[in-house]
């Protein structure tokens, strides 16, 4: 079973020679591709594609819609890479229903109307079978009406605020309650936190997340009290006054959802003001391995992050995933939570298509609930009827070298609950 990362399909396009070894290597994956041609004959195009999608006897065209340029490129690059890696691996196994996946990449350029326009192009002109894409909630909201009108299918990788469920979207990241409630309960139990100070950037995701957090702290979970709740404009780089307020309030736990360039400034200034992991318990929803590059390990050391995936997860699936990712994108590349969620998209789609025996969006959507992925780097995930994933939640502590050490994991898969009762 063990194979060097260099044997991975990506580095050997002449795959026939390597197929046997390769199949061994990928043997743990759920559905091993049979030789392509025979499979394609078993599934004639007229049957697997009744709605005029871009599916031929040999290939199926999918779309990828992220920001390769503009301010969001910093975050979306990882998703682009992970989705491409998954697609390459699937192709190396023989593709889906005997058809190779061909990707049309579109650049949303960090601009929401551009996302809408490009999604229309992918669905109407290119007739793609599915789209892997979007990162911010704003971009998802911009393309949602188009996916619903044109009956497209979108795999969305980012953890987000919830309060949404579309027939045409599969959400492969965590919705807010999955990420927040386990983290807060853990902090209350393990760190004896009773007084919480909530800090976020001023837009929909932090505000919705903090609303859930406050409800959970004060009424539903009865963990203690909220001694401060603060929002700063996106791009704010000066947190000294906030830090003084935190010092005045003396919270047991700083609960943070600061994003972007502000994120870096926040942790650098916390450290400079003497608030370090050794003295203060801080739990954040918005620092993954990607953000750590900018924040700097020495500024985040000792603080905690609540995510479903960390690069250091010790399971076998993840070791293979990390090795393949580094083989393709270089030894210094890092993998954050959303990157892993992006990687799940093509695999979940493959499983759903194979279960449905068709590329038709309606049939794939109908087949999706209940799809399991035992090969997921995060361990095991299952698609819920509400199109979100059952997944475990984890807490990890930042190390001075910029890596994360996982310190806790929810014992069970957490049910996605995008419309949480009692939290509105």
């Amino acid at each position, binding site marked *: 079973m063990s194979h060097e990362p260099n044997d991975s399909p990506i580095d050997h396009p002449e795959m026939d020679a390597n197929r046997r070894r390769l199949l061994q290597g990928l043997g743990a994956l759920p559905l091993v591709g049979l030789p392509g041609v025979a499979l394609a004959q078993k599934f004639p195009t007229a049957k697997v594609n009744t709605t005029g999608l871009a599916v031929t006897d040999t290939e199926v065209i999918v779309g990828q819609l992220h920001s390769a*340029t*503009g*301010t969001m*490129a*910093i975050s979306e*690059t990882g998703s682009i890479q992970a989705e491409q890696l998954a697609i390459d691996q699937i192709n190396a196994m023989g593709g889906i229903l005997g058809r190779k996946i061909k990707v049309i990449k579109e650049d949303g350029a960090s601009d929401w109307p551009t996302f809408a326009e490009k999604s229309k192009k992918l669905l109407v002109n290119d007739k793609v079978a599915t789209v892997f894409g979007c990162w911010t909630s704003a971009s998802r909201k911009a393309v949602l009406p188009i996916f619903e009108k044109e009956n497209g299918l979108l795999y969305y990788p980012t953890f987000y605020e919830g309060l949404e469920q579309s027939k045409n979207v599969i959400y492969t990241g965590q919705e807010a309650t999955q990420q927040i409630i386990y983290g807060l309960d853990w902090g209350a139990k393990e760190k004896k936190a009773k007084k919480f100070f909530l800090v976020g950037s*001023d837009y929909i995701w932090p505000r919705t997340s903090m609303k859930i957090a406050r409800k959970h702290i004060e009424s539903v979970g009865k963990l203690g009290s909220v*001694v*401060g709740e*603060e*929002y*700063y*404009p996106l*791009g*704010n*780089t*000066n947190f*000294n*006054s*906030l*830090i*003084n*307020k935190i*010092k*005045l*309030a*003396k919270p047991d736990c700083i609960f943070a959802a600061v994003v*972007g*360039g*502000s*994120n*870096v*400034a926040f942790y*650098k*200034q916390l*450290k*400079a*003001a*003497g608030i370090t992991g050794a003295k203060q318990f801080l739990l954040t929803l918005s620092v993954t391995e*990607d*953000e750590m*590059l*900018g*924040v*700097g390990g*020495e*500024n985040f050391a000792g603080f905690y992050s609540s995510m479903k995936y960390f690069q250091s997860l010790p399971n076998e699936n993840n070791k293979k995933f990390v090795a393949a990712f580094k083989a393709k994108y270089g030894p210094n590349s890092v993998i954050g939570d959303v990157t892993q969620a992006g990687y799940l998209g093509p695999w979940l789609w493959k499983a759903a298509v194979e279960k449905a025996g068709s590329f038709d969006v309606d049939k794939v959507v109908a087949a999706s609930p209940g799809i399991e992925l035992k090969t997921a780097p995060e361990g095991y995930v299952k698609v819920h009827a509400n199109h979100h994933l059952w997944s475990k939640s984890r807490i990890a502590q930042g190390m001075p070298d910029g890596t994360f050490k996982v310190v806790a994991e929810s014992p069970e898969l957490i049910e996605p609950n995008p419309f949480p009762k009692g939290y509105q």
Partner: protein
Amino acid sequence: MKGISMTFSDLLNIGLMQGFAGLSLFSVLLLMGLGLAVIFGQMGVINMAHGEFMTIGAYTVYMASVLTEKIAPDFLVYYFPLAILLAFCLAFVAGWVAEWALIRHLYKRPLDTLLATWGLSLGMQQFFRTAIGPKEVSPTLPDWLMGSWAPMEGLDIPINGMFVMALTALVTALLLLALYKARWGLRVRATVSNRVMANAIGINTKKTDRLTFAIGCGIAGVAGAAFTTIGSTGPTSGSLYIVDSFLVVTFGGAASLLGTVASAFGIAQTQSIAEFFLSGSNAKVLTLMLVITILMIRPQGLFAAKVRR
């Protein structure tokens, strides 16, 4: 903050730290505004790429830290001041080239410089993204720049804040000296007050313009380098500062360096105090409203240069 008992010394400490926070923001705003004050204030060029020249400085520090770590790890303690000098030089050269290639053709069309420099800023952002990578990076800072100075229990003064403050004082002093005591300053002031006459008495105004623009960009580079200690370094980091930079310079009165200082101080104190008593976003709203109100009463800004036009 109900139900929390504070001792007197706690409150004193918070008060001191809050006072320092205001001064620290003042020096940050002043440092980011200085370069623009030279370019916008003295030359009237609306330089939308100001933030990107700051990013050049930030990346210079990052590159310097990477190189130092590779070649001479022992030198890591000392590299930072040299990296700031280097940041000035690189941003200066970039500014020189930008003036030669773009800006000098547009002096008679000030609104077009706005579009041109905005285009330049987008181009530079994409260049950083392609050449260095879209992800944010973090230079390894020497230990002496990190953490806080704690003269007593409960009182933490950020060292990076003190560093930025000292650097701002130095740059401001040098700039004032250069503008009011050096030949270059004389030429700049002559060109600003009457270009035709300056030309007539033998001042090479084209050369003066180029040097002025490059010096403004160089100072932006220094600011960007200094801000690696408090903020982020990425392709779009510059855009975090551009609005505040223009705010400081416009509010201060475009042609007056002293106005820039006063305006940075006013904005910083207002914002810092407002942030302490209001929420972050509301503090920003309050600050902007005050600035706008004062600009309505005094459209020329706090300090207007007395120039006959």
